[in-house]
């Protein structure tokens, strides 16, 4: 088994890397062709997958990248999901290194 990627030390690092790969390689095309769909980036291979539903794109990604480490994005949106609470309610202990 390959040694773990030192960049992937915590969830936020995975998310940041996923966002970076998406912005550099996929954003333009995906926002033109798949607006509103869910995209998943395998940060280990920089491969992306997309589907209209989150469960569907996860299934596709796991089939094609069984060993992948994934970050999910909703095309054209700042986040894959919206929640009704604020940052203040969430507290300062965010998921971070």
């Amino acid at each position, binding site marked *: 088994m390959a040694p773990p990627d030192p960049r992937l030390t915590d*969830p936020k690092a995975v*998310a940041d890397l*996923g966002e970076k790969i998406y912005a550099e390689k996929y954003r333009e095309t995906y926002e033109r062709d798949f607006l509103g769909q869910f995209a998943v980036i395998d940060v280990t291979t920089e491969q992306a997958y997309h589907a209209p539903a*989150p*469960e569907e794109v996860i299934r596709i990604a*796991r089939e094609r990248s069984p060993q992948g480490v994934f970050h999910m994005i909703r095309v054209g949106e700042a986040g894959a999901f919206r929640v009704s609470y604020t940052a203040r309610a969430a507290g300062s202990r965010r998921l971070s290194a």
Partner: protein
Amino acid sequence: MSATPPEPPAVAGYLHKSGCPALKIRVWGVSETLAQEFEAIVDTGFSGFLSMPMVQAFPLGLVLFGTTKVVLADGSTDTKLTALGNIGLEGGLNKAGVIILETNISEILVGVDFLNQFERSLVLFGERAIPQALRSSTKPLILIDNKLIHAVLDAIREAAEKAAQDKARAQTDAAQLQIQSAPETNASPEADPTSQSN
């Protein structure tokens, strides 16, 4: 081979002590034997399937998937871990979906994708919406099968179309009646052989 039992047309919920709509759900991951029952608040401000505190998710065997970003109500974003899991409702209804694992929120929330996955519409009765005589027997929260909703909407559309056709027909009939009842215009004396001139 036993037939699949029909899905219940409606699943009842209740009002949480906070006043929010809520219902009982079962959650599990790799095996239903790990399922546990929880009280979940139906939060239509949440676009996802299920959000739950990470610590409560530990014993459920959820399949960790990766990360995602969520947009908070103030427009900022936060990074979350995601997992795959199943929600079970009464009547044997089960659906799989993406579960957001929370580190600071203590409530379990089901969102709009939950309603989409289960193909249910949320009907919420306010306190004053239910007549006093029916309050003991009417649940304040009902998740109705979308097929029933479609049937109701179709019936409403058909009734509206029929009413519009009836109205148009009545207007046409009234117009024709008016034409028939209008007094005849005076004809010229030369054209009328029975008229006598002085």
